[in-house]
């Protein structure tokens, strides 16, 4: 019998029943819940007089709408306030554990879950958020779902699914100096395109991926959805197991040894079949900067803004032209000549302790440039914030002229007060450079934490190695 891919193994171990046409009832081990995509799901349960199937499989926190400053005043936006309060009310009435505002464990769902050991290797993990792919970094099958499916999982602990195809993206070789997990995944998206992974579960492998820390792997899997794949996964290794030791929800006592025995099997077998394999050479990856309004519109820091006239595909050409107009950029402008107005370090892609350390290393002893209106650092959770403060990172940022904020999704999607004004240009460690994503008319350039900090102290993009 042919070997199984990691995705095959995760899928097979969660099949509750399978119909002849392949439609499968798949068991879900963990659902993370936040305030934006859950109210209608809870309402649906209420209307149908249903109860959560297994309430302890759910864990909630508010992240999208929470303010990152002036927390003593609470949420001043009345509409957002109702939504956050609705989450708390729903969690109370359905008896679901929630880390509310003011709890040090509160944070972005995709930072909070692994930090608590609430998402573990071998699990199926869902959340009403497309960046749920993050949790694939430690050999879990994780993907975003819509609100109807949030309700479905609450009511049945299952999802109706069809299996995706298998894709392997292998990055081999040693990473160049200044190149982080973010640069790797942006380079991958640049190569496969934003729809390249549609219909696939992507396994990331190769020596360059293995060399990444667990947090770095989370950054890579986080953006699998930006390549079109609902799930990104990475095999379990010693780093993964080490990461989950002694976390609050991690297995305890004799269960720990049993779990480790199961987890070390979470890798693709030799000879397993992938429907598509893409190989990349790590030595060819330089620090990346997006120039357009889709994450696939990305180039090296040493490159220039591409010229639509050199694109032969007419739909692509029009897309590039529209992106340049929206971004206020001229073709062939060197990326390093683009000045920015704001800098955002945070989001489920890059707000963990290692991200903050990388940014702080660049900020240390430097000052935010005069043309920068705002440079902000938003830790991914209260625990990340506390640890960063224990390490003195907050002081490095504050001394350099950055604002040090409270945890949340913040300016990644600008549902709270943190946002770009029309035509403002931002170096952002988040995951989407779509039109209006960070504020109506705002212009987003996606970069790594080190590159964002470098842009902050330099006023325009610069190769972090050239600082």
């Amino acid at each position, binding site marked *: 019998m042919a070997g199984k891919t990691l995705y095959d193994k995760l899928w097979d171990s969660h099949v509750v029943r399978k119909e002849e046409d392949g439609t499968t009832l798949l068991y879900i081990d963990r659902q993370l819940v936040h305030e934006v995509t859950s109210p209608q799901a809870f309402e649906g349960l209420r209307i149908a007089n249903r109860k959560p199937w297994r309430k302890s499989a759910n864990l909630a926190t508010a992240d999208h709408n929470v303010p990152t400053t002036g927390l003593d005043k609470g949420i001043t936006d009345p*509409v957002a306030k109702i939504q956050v309060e609705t989450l708390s009310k729903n969690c109370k009435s359905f008896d679901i554990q929630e880390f509310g505002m003011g709890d040090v464990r509160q944070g972005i769902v995709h930072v909070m879950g692994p930090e608590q050991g609430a998402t573990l290797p071998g699990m199926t993990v869902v959340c009403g958020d497309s960046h749920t792919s993050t949790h694939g970094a430690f050999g879990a099958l994780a993907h975003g779902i819509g609100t109807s499916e949030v309700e479905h999982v609450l009511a049945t602990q299952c999802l109706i699914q069809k299996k995706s195809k298998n894709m392997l993206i292998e990055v081999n070789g040693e990473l160049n100096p200044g190149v982080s997990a973010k640069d790797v995944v942006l380079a991958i998206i640049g190569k496969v395109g934003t729809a390249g992974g549609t219909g696939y579960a992507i396994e990331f492998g190769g020596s360059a991926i293995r060399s990444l820390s667990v947090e770095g792997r989370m950054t890579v899997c986080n953006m699998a959805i930006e390549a079109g794949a609902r799930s990104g996964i990475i095999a379990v290794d010693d780093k993964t197991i080490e990461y989950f030791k002694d976390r609050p929800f991690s297995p305890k006592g004799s269960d720990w040894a049993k779990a480790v025995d199961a987890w070390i099997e979470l890798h693709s077998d030799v000879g397993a079949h992938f429907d598509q394999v893409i190989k990349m050479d790590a030595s060819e990856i330089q620090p990346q900067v997006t120039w357009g309004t889709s994450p696939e519109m990305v180039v090296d820091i040493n490159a220039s803004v591409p010229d639509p006239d050199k694109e032969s595909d007419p739909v692509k050409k029009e897309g590039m032209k529209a992106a340049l107009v929206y971004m206020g950029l001229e073709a062939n402008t060197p990326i390093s000549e683009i000045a920015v107005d704001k800098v955002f370090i945070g989001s489920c892609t890059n707000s963990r302790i290692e991200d903050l350390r990388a940014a702080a290393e660049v900020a240390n002893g430097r000052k935010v440039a005069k043309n920068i209106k705002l440079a902000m650092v938003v830790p991914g959770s209260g625990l990340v914030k506390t640890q960063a403060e224990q390490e003195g990172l907050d002081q490095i940022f504050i001394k350099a002229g950055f604002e040090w904020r409270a945890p949340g999704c913040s300016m990644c999607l600008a549902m709270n007060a943190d946002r770009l004004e029309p035509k403002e240009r931002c170096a952002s460690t988040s995951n989407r450079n779509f039109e209006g994503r960070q504020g109506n008319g705002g212009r987003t350039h996606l970069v790594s934490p080190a590159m964002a900090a470098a842009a902050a102290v330099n006023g325009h993009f610069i190769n972090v190695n050239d600082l």
Partner: protein
Amino acid sequence: MKAFNTLNGIVAPLDRANVDTDAIIPKQFLKSIKRSGFGPNLFDEWRYLDEGQPDADNSKRPINKDFILNQDRYQGASILIARDNFGCGSSREHAPWALEDYGFRVIIAPSFADIFFNNCFKNGLLPIVLAESTVDELFTEVDVNEGYKLTVNLQEQVIEKPNGNSIAFEVDPFRKHCLINGLDDIGLTLHHVEDIRSYEEKRKKEAPWLFSS
């Protein structure tokens, strides 16, 4: 869920690739705790010249006359033709809610993003994948024929053109069944309660730590 069987409707063209769910319904409207009322803010940043706010009166806002859905000839459209990777980005189900609330029941494109595609079926919205050349033809025909309509027959899996030609399309049999009968997925799954329980019993023995918290 609203059942879907046959639809005869005006076709509107949205000629750009990678239309993301942030464009379909911008984030400020996601603060609502309801699942209806998103239609007036569908494509908000393209449709209006100012910035929309939740609960604001949209009827008095300045309209972007260049945006396709604001043109007289596409008023009342219920079929949207689009380009590759429609619905990419965020998993927000507010995107299909907004499209449905506006009046769309069918979206035709060469490809869709996975999560959006899936969300459509939960809301009585039929996403149809057709070959790029077929979609190209539709764009051309819509452009030159004012009031261009198509008839979409889900039971027969066929789209009938005004000139009498027809286009066959594929749809997953299970999803087709649910859509035609307006079935609620949860109700269907709860027919398999015993299967779920026996899976849990087996799994508890293999991986007890998954059930300890």
